[in-house]
């Protein structure tokens, strides 16, 4: 991406480790490295897609940015403030700038509150709007997300999944946030509804000047909405690039494997699919050096140092691999 873009969110060496106690008297403890040493810049006004398989730490990363987890180490720079340094109380004042949309629209809405209460609560708590303004805004937000404003007195159980997710979106944009983290915001919905919600999200992005961090496990949904895409594997970022670059010219072996798994409509153009060997290693005791080495077809295993994310041939395409761009069967470049 071009240099004149302003950085909104900057992660520096961000990690989240969980201590797991095992054994009968919980004497033995080990560390689960859910997110390990991730650095990333997200620019104002872009939609950044974050993909990776289950358990690779995408959601943990999102929760750290949203303030639901406190990072073990590293920095989260948002608008000139390091959020990781703040106390819980100070951190809460940033909730009006960073909001999150959750995966499951069925369980993420309090069943005991009306739609109006759900949407107005963040405005009241964060003191962004006052009194009669709030009610007007609730109606306006409902219209924005494609629901009738007369729905405001209903309860969540009276809505379908897609409608509930629209309520969740209205709730998230109520406080005029700068950044919205969509944690698998569409994966619980039907495919036809997914498209509607994705279109809604991109419309809202233009209308309110939002920045998205779009977390998903499938590349298809991410492709639709994102400007840039980051690929995570086992707690670390392996490749970050503009959307076109990721799809047309994936460099990391893992990304190549992911892209090759996307079905292509035209039977004549079918690519050979790269099948990865072995299982995902446990994040409790991740492999030393390159984390992907145990499943990589290049399997260079050249150093014990984990490859860092660096620009490929001076472009904005970042990749963390000792031999970027190697295809299966060919010799390492």
């Amino acid at each position: 991406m071009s240099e004149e873009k302003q950085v909104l969110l900057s992660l520096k060496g961000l990690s989240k480790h969980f201590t797991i106690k095992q054994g009968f008297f919980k004497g033995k403890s080990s560390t689960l490295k859910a997110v390990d040493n991730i650095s990333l810049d997200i620019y104002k006004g872009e939609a950044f897609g974050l993909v990776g398989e289950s358990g690779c730490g995408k959601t943990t990363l999102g929760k750290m940015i949203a303030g639901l987890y406190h990072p073990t180490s590293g920095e989260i720079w948002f608008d000139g403030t390091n959020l990781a340094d703040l106390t819980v109380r100070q951190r809460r004042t940033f909730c009006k700038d960073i909001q999150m949309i959750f995966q499951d629209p069925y369980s993420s809405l309090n069943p005991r509150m009306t739609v109006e209460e759900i949407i107005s609560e963040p405005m009241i708590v964060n003191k962004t709007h006052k009194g009669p303004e709030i009610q007007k805004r609730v109606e306006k937000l409902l219209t924005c997300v494609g629901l009738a404003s007369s729905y405001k007195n209903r309860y969540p159980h009276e809505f379908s999944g897609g409608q509930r997710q629209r309520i969740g979106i209205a709730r998230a944009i109520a406080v005029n946030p700068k950044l919205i983290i969509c944690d698998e915001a569409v994966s619980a919905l039907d495919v036809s509804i997914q498209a509607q919600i994705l279109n809604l999200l991109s419309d809202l992005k233009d209308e309110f000047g939002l920045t998205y961090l779009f977390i998903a496990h499938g590349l298809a949904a991410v492709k639709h909405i994102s400007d840039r895409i980051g690929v995570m594997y086992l707690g670390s970022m392996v490749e970050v690039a503009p959307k076109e670059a990721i799809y047309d010219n994936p460099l990391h072996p893992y990304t190549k494997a992911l892209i090759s798994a996307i079905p292509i409509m035209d039977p004549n153009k079918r690519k050979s699919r790269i099948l990865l060997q072995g299982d995902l290693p446990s994040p409790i005791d991740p492999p030393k050096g390159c984390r992907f080495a145990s499943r990589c077809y290049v399997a260079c295993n050249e150093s014990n140092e984990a490859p860092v994310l660096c620009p490929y041939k001076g472009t904005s395409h970042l990749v963390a691999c000792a031999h970027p761009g190697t295809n299966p069967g060919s010799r390492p470049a």
Partner: protein
Amino acid sequence: MRVFSPDPSIIVLGQHATTEKINAWRTAMGLDKPIITQYIDYMTAVLHGDFGLSYFTNTPVTAELLARLPATIELAVLAIIIAATVGIFFGVLSAVKKNSWIDGLTMTTALIGVSMPVFWLGMILIIIFSGYFHLVPSGGRIDTLMRPMGGTGFYLWDTLSIGDFEAFFNALQHAALPAITLAGYSMAIITRMTRSSMLDVLHQDYIRTARAKGLSPVQVIGRHAFRNALLPIVTVVGLQFGSLLSGAVLTETVFAWPGIGAYSVECILRSDFPVIQAVVLIVATVFVLMNLIVDLLYAALDPRVKYATGEA
């Protein structure tokens, strides 16, 4: 009851009563008829509001019970207030501080509370607070001289309504130990129920949503978690109140509390059938009524529960 109890006629008329006298009494009380007939006669009377006469005092059972019911209700209400306040408070606390020492202490205490026999707890409390520290009296409802005249029979209410604070505190002192004793078991049950219900709700996604909205932990617990956890808690409090009335039997006996519990024990010992039947009937009715009230409360507490109306 009728099979195993000693023959009431001997207790009423004395060991040396003649057979003619006994037979005459039995006929007068209707005890010579077949049990089915007795039952039908009794139920017919009950449906007309007549619980019969006590064998012993020859007074209407209704009057006897009405005189004692306020004492029991006062005790039960006091106990349920204590049990619900303390139980819910510690239940929420131990759910929020899960796996901390507070949680451990609360749950251990609750386990002891559930397992402890009521009469034993009562005696221990008497020994400690009454016998050793002399803080509170060991029995009775109020000092005889302070007994309020007339009124509803609820001494706490009566004394307070006429502004006699000395008598009110005296009555409160008398009620403290029995109420705590009676509350003990329910308190433990309510604590455990609150804890598990809160834990369940705290793991829900909308709690995470609430935190992401920017609510403080207190707001999250108070406005989102507790309100959703309330349903099972209300159920348990309601059911406990029903069982408190019957649980009062032991407590009232230990503390010489002149309510229907202690009275029914007296009557069981002397085979006063009409009284016992009436007590059982009342306790069962209260229990069923509490269940009904709890069910109706659901609708008020949970917007998803709506009872069918004409249009629905």
